């Protein structure tokens, strides 16, 4: 019979002494309970050492804590931080404060509740077996997909922190979209190429990935179809976004350009004015928010460009948009400056009409800015140049890549659905991170912060060189596995694979004592979060959660047989 | 001469043939057959007798066909593989020919779930092309399908089949016609045509394969009664394409029915001009009285008499 020690956490007096007495009286009724004592602050490390002493002196092998929310204790006990006298899973918590004392109208009712909770907790410790922990060696090697602004800055961060980095770039050189925009990127690229810890593979394509966190093996197809295989502990997806604009009808006209092209035109501009086919450009109209309303990039570049055009190149600029996006640092001021410089801003609801009037383009719209003067609209702008917003989208390879990496795409085809629990930079798989515009097009300054956050996540993961994990996760009984592929399909973290010859499911035949190997699903314990989705869905009852069996759940229902 | 039917003779003479369609009664009321027969008599060279079309139970096409014979019309007996296995098919062919029926149209038949006996077990022992092959074997080899067994007496049938240029895959439809020709079909009646361009495209493919010389193609037409009908067919009947402008014409017209007839007549005239089209098949479904008017307006009257 198990020997249980009861530990009453007085929680700095939030559990009245009288109540404590009643409880200690109650627990004595259980034969397996051999001792009951009090503690003031269980989260303190000296408390833990006291428990150690108790365990030795009283010789019990299981502990039930009567106190506050189990989450607090579990966090400090189960997360392998403190050296415990017992396996953390031989502790169980009866939440008699939040779930009894505080939610009951009177103490008697509270006691009733507490009793039930305690008996459940005792049942739980009785029925749990110790769950060992393991750990995984993590080599400081990281694979980065996409050598644009974000990929580069992560690579440099990591390299400085002493991590070996591989960059896989599909183009023939690093830099991606940002090259056009940021001059300083050149030196960064230079830095990357000089850094001994960084290896860059250009014109390369990720073909296959096997393994899990800490042991990813990526097969990369290099030019001349040569294949190489790289090992990495973690991976970063920073493949950026695709921006294109379908040019049909009037949008194909030579006087209509996209913002990115405008960037080039202005860069080439020499002298005090902007020329197109030798003619001076006087009126420039920006037409934004036609496609993507929810992306700031266009508004910001439009304001930046318009200032230069208006100020240095002697153009009159009008900016047409649904909403001007100024929600990033300093933009409101720029917006204000632009208006002071004479840039005109118009807001529209129904898209403006474009028409060609002897070589120029006339833009007509209904201005919806809240103003009283009638004559301000309908507005009609005869422009030498119309600059249209990009239309942003996920990169064409996104879908294929998501299959190779076994990570999800969001509804709009960008990497990962918008789920706060992922804290933006995490993917559904342990060890794979998402950064920058491949998750959603955003302006550089914000994306760079995201990049740093990813570096931080990776450093945290790799700094210790090992990844400890306990086996309180889903485990497959190979003999029961029906090989139905349900769990690999459903595992949200792609932690399950069908192992044709998994070492987990080796058993020996009685006669020959030969090792038989059989196919079965296999959970990678380090990548499993222990959510139990596969357990619930497995049609053959082949999967169990070590620390939460069906039997224990029924016991928690407390409905009897 | 395969069978020496009126239809065969007219086509062989190279005249422009006209066939009509007659739906048997949903019962055994012979007067219905009489009434409809009167409406068609003298305006068409032969009359298709449908075989439980759209899987609605009607008087059997064999019985109806032989009634028509008594009334002095030439029937084209339609036969589907939906309801008969190869035993029933072959015995029915014995019977039909014994009753003097000379034309047969081999079909797979509308799926039974469209009809009024949805819980039936369909047969589909043969498909339409295998049926053609079966009839040809009986006629030309004088044996039963797949067997050496000689048939007592001789089967003389002018074998027809349907083809739908408006179903998909379009590029395959002519090929499939080729299969039917290879299986031994003598004449083809098409699904009703509204999309003239697609039909012409199809005919070109047919000619490229030289099929128009191996069988007679009768172009199918159906007068539109109303805008409603046009819309419904365009939307719900797969394998029928009705161009918007035609729907518009009927919908906008003051007298839709007359407009429908007018369109039909124009179509016939247009079809006549197409190389390889040897006749028209007028499917005036439950509107038989219009057949006379259409043929008259289209200048297809009087129907030629072929000397016995």
């Amino acid at each position: 019979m198990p020997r249980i020690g009861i530990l009453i956490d007085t929680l700095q007096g939030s559990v009245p002494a009288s109540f404590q007495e009643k409880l200690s009286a109650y627990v004595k009724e259980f034969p397996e309970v051999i001792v009951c004592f009090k503690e003031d602050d269980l989260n303190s490390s000296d408390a833990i050492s006291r428990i150690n002493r108790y365990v030795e002196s009283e010789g019990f092998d299981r502990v039930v804590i009567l106190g506050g929310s189990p989450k607090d204790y579990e966090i400090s006990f189960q997360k392998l931080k403190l050296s415990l006298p017992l396996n953390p899973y031989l502790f169980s918590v009866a939440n008699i404060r939040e779930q009894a004392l505080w939610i009951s109208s009177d103490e008697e009712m509270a006691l009733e509740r507490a009793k039930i909770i305690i008996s459940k907790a005792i049942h739980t410790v009785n029925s749990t077996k110790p769950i060992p922990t393991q750990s995984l060696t993590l080599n400081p090697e990281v694979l980065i997909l996409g050598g644009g602004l974000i990929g580069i800055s992560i690579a440099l961060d990591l390299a400085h922190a002493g991590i070996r980095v591989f960059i896989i770039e599909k183009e023939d050189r690093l830099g991606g979209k940002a090259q056009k925009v940021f001059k300083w990127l050149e030196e960064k690229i230079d830095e990357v190429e000089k850094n001994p810890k960084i290896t860059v593979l250009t014109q390369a394509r990720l073909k296959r990935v096997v393994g899990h966190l800490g042991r990813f093996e990526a097969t990369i197809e290099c030019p001349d179809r040569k294949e190489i295989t790289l090992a990495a502990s973690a991976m970063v997806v920073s493949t950026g976004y695709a921006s294109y604009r379908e040019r049909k009808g009037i949008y194909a006209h030579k006087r209509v350009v996209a913002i990115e092209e405008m960037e080039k035109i202005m860069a080439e501009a020499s002298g005090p004015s902007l020329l197109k086919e030798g003619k001076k450009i006087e009126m420039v109209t920006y037409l934004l928010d036609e496609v993507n309303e929810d992306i700031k990039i266009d508004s910001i570049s439009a304001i930046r460009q318009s200032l230069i055009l208006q100020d240095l190149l002697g153009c009159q600029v009008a900016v047409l948009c649904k909403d001007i996006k100024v929600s990033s640092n300093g933009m409101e001021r720029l917006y204000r400056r632009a208006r002071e410089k004479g840039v005109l801003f118009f807001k529209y609801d129904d898209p403006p009409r474009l028409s060609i009037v002897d070589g120029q383009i006339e833009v007509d719209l209904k201005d919806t800015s809240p103003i009283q003067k009638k004559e301000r609209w309908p507005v009609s702008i005869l422009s030498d140049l119309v600059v249209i917003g990009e239309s942003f989208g996920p990169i064409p390879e996104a879908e294929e890549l998501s299959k190779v990496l076994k990570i999800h795409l969001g509804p709009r085809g960008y990497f990962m659905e918008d789920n706060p629990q992922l804290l933006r930079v995490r993917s559904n798989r342990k060890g794979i991170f998402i950064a920058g515009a491949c998750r959603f097009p955003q302006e550089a300054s914000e994306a760079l912060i995201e990049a740093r956050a990813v570096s931080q996540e990776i450093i945290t993961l790799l700094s210790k060189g090992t990844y400890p994990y306990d086996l309180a996760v889903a485990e497959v009984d190979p003999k029961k596995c029906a090989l139905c592929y349900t769990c690999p399909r459903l595992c949200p973290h792609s932690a399950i694979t069908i192992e044709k010859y998994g070492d987990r499911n080796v058993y020996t035949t009685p006669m020959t004592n030969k090792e038989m190997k059989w196919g079965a699903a296999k959970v990678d314990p380090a990548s499993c979060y222990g959510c139990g989705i596969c357990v619930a869905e497995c049609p053959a009852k082949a999967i169990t959660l070590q620390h939460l069996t069906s039997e224990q759940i029924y016991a928690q229902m407390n409905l009897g047989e | 001469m395969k069978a020496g039917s009126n239809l065969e003779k007219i086509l062989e003479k190279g005249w422009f043939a006209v066939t009509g369609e007659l739906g048997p009664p949903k019962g055994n009321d012979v007067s219905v057959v009489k009434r409809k027969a009167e409406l068609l008599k003298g305006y068409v060279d032969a009359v298709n007798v449908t075989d439980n079309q759209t899987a609605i139970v009607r008087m059997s096409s064999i019985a109806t066909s032989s009634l028509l014979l008594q009334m002095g019309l030439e029937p084209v007996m339609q036969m589907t593989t939906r309801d008969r296995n190869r035993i029933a098919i072959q015995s029915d062919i014995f019977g039909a020919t014994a009753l003097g029926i000379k034309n047969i149209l081999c079909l797979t038949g509308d799926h039974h779930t469209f009809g009024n006996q949805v819980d039936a077990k369909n047969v589909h022992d043969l498909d339409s092309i295998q049926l053609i092959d079966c009839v040809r074997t009986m006629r030309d080899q004088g044996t039963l399908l797949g067997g050496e067994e000689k048939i007592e007496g001789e089967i003389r049938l002018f074998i027809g089949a349907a083809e739908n240029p408006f179903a998909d895959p379009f590029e395959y439809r002519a090929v499939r016609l080729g299969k039917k020709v290879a299986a031994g079909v003598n004449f083809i009646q098409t699904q009703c045509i509204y999309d003239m361009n697609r039909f012409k495209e199809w005919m070109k493919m047919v000619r490229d394969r030289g099929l128009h010389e191996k069988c007679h193609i009768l172009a199918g037409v159906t007068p539109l009664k109303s805008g409603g009908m046009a819309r419904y067919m365009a939307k719900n009947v797969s394998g029928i394409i009705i161009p918007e402008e035609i729907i518009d014409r009927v919908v906008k017209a003051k007298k839709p029915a007359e407009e429908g007839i007018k369109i039909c007549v124009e179509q016939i005239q247009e079809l006549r001009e197409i190389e390889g089209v040897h006749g028209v098949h007028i499917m005036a479904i439950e509107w038989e009285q219009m057949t006379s008017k259409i043929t008259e307006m289209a200048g297809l009257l009087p129907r030629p008499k072929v000397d016995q």
Partner: protein
Amino acid sequence: MTLTKDVLIIGGGISGITVAMELAQLGIHSAIVEKETSLGGLSASFCCKASESCNKCFACVVDKRISELSRYPEISVLTQTEVIGVKGEDGRYSVTLKKRKERFDLRASAIVIATGIDPFNASQKVEYGYGRYKNVITAKELDEMLRFKGLLSRPSDGRPPKTIAFFQCVGSRDESIGNLYCSQVCCAYALRLIKTIRHQYPEVEATFLYMDIQPAGTSFQEFLSSCREDKKIHLIRSLPSKVYHSPLSDKLRVRFIDPEKEEVVEASFDLIVLSVGMVLSKGTQSLTETFGLSLTEDGFIAPPSSHKGLFIAGACSGPKDIDRSILHSKSTAFVVHQFLRGRA
């Protein structure tokens, strides 16, 4: 008495907490100094803004993080504590702290300032009558009402409002009060509030008076269009000029330009919610003097040169929502870690 830690973190909001946790995971010991009695700061008072499904307000993430904090023995938390002075520089700091009466020193190699922001004091916008009319409240007050009371009611009579108006850009993008910046979070914040209210109280009608709608997050487009589809949510591009109170009906009359009619109109509401902008907290201003930090032209803390061992995390470096505060704090943690490695 004197404590010694690797890092001192000033401010126990989501940013401070995140920095501390990130560092703890790297084995770096830190102390969080929080002037209030409990951690969490501004974001801890936010309610969940889900409707049929999650609207990505990140409030739940804050609660989770706070509860996780006790996991880390590397982190010591000093509540009701304030910074009085600092000695030393370049990674050798001794900070004097005051907890209630007692004063004590804390030695640290790096200092992270994560003091966050205060909501703009709405009474400065006299024309909106905040502080004068009971039923003019700030979005924060509404948020707390929903989180702790769990119901929607008018301060004046406790009855549930039928019509609510949300004023955007109160204290943001406003030259008249010298705040020439966009607080970046208020649009999404207010719209989420509207959405969750509409979900829990389908009879309520909400009017959203704004200048420009600022996007936030990956699925904002869908979110926005779902707001537009809702017949009982009116998005009007126009900032109100004045609010009047009609004592008899106890309603609030709002004057603004109707962009459709192009003329000044008046509409009356049961409750007015002001989406107040962000300003650097008063406490922080004195801090910046203590540490000799400079402010940006928008009045937030300008990033100091990293070799000093002084770092900024979260919204005190410029308006941020929870989401981006967390990201920013993580990135700061990275820099801090690098700094300490460099010294070791």
